[in-house]
């Protein structure tokens, strides 16, 4: 009897990668706003 494969399969690996890209863009824009607050508007 063959051993059953219990590994998880990502059904949509392309979207998984796109999700990581979205997360990276979100973080960059968020911190760009923080930097903007501090540099341009002088918020400490």
């Amino acid at each position: 009897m063959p051993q059953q494969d219990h590994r998880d399969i990502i059904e949509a690996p392309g979207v998984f990668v796109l999700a990581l890209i979205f997360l990276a863009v979100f973080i960059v824009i968020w911190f760009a706003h923080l930097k903007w607050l501090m540099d341009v508007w002088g918020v400490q």
Partner: protein
Amino acid sequence: MAIFRTDALSGLKIDKATENLVRWNVIAALATLAVGGLLGLLVVLTRWPSVHLLPLDYYYRFLTLHGIDALLAWIIFFEIALVHFTSAALLGTRSYVPWLGWLAFALMLAGGAVINVIVLMGGADVMFTSYVPLKGDPLYYLGVILFAVGALLGFIVFFINILLSKRDGGYKRTLPLGAFGMLAASIIAVLTLGHGAAIMIPTWLWSMDLIGTIDPAAYRLVFWGLGHSSQQINVSAMVAVWYMSSAFIIGGKPVNEKLSRTAFVLYILFINVASEHHLLVDPVFSTWHKIVNTSYMMHLAVLASMIHAFAIPASIEVALRKQGHTRGLFEWLKKAPWGNPAFSGMAISILLFGFLGGITGVIFGTEQFNIIRHNTIAITGHFHGTVVAGTTIAFMGFTYLLIQYVFRREIIWKGFATIQPWIYGVGVALLSIGMMSAGSFGVPRRHYDITFSGAPFSFTFDPSIDLFLSMMGVGGVLAVTGGVLYIVLSFGSIIWGKKIEQ
């Protein structure tokens, strides 16, 4: 006696009586978008400093009407068409109260017409928000009430159809996902329109001097229960359209349907508190109140959007992989039906809603960030990223399906139809990014003259705003070009499109 037909293209069993309600609501939606879009062009050409087209009073009037026609009337007419469509086609049920559907349509049409005439005549120069103690013509408030009551009745027709369809065995355990999403939108609509009634009816009475005063702070709070919550109906309906488009075009099924349904429930529970965005610098409400709403509860609604935003592309990827596009990570993306405007409309809507509207919504809705963006044109850029780049493009894409399934006509000028969502999408993206960038330098929203000519104190913006406002202007013109193409293609197909034989 219900008369059904089986649609040759989609295989859907459709109730003919409800089909007519879908058709007329779509036609009304198209007409209001045409007016709202034209006014939007005039407004953007005025805010573009090198053009500055309209005189002062017409600018504010057209801006008000642009908001009413393009933000409320177009979208709500289309949403009523969607609830009738999901009832007639997805549930395959007959309309139990078609007369109520027509009454709702007539009230919306009458209310919309009254608002348009009164605003154009200068009877409601109180802007879209109509904050008291600014007082407009009583007919303006009456128009808003008529339109809102009509919309409410339209959603009630949907509730009745769902309940009686279940009794008659129209569906078994639960609603199909698209109908479930529209049900979530309808529940949010009832909450929203309840807020509208709670504030607009007293304000109408006050405008006729039948009530002494309306508390301005209470008005602001309750008004945004109507004003912003109505945008949450749009979000829920747009997501339902994404799921339906994915299913109709490529046979996409959600990877985990229970999770998608849970996300819709999160919308119902938490999304209405996002109306607090507008009150983040309001001195009346406590910081605790604002932060609980926008920095805690709002994120539960955002979580729902994140679930949908990845569940739908995942359903598309899984469906396309099943069709054999399995090479590498992204072959399915390359082989997707990009030439089909219904598909490209959905895909552009998901992409732009996520990157433009979604990210900025979370950031601008945070108390600490909001303080520097509030009342700047960056906010206008944000909601053009959600309501226009998101909802409107999604509805445009779905129109191409409705024309074939409900109007039973082929799309005319297929080449133009293929590029229409792209032209519109690129235009709105430029418009939105231009607005957000100019807003980052403090350019105010709504303002007629940002040179402040004649003001006692002078103020000069960073010169880079000229570039960003020009980007906004070019994007606006491009978007209107795509919008005109959509209107021409839709009406042209409905009138002259080749009939699809059943």
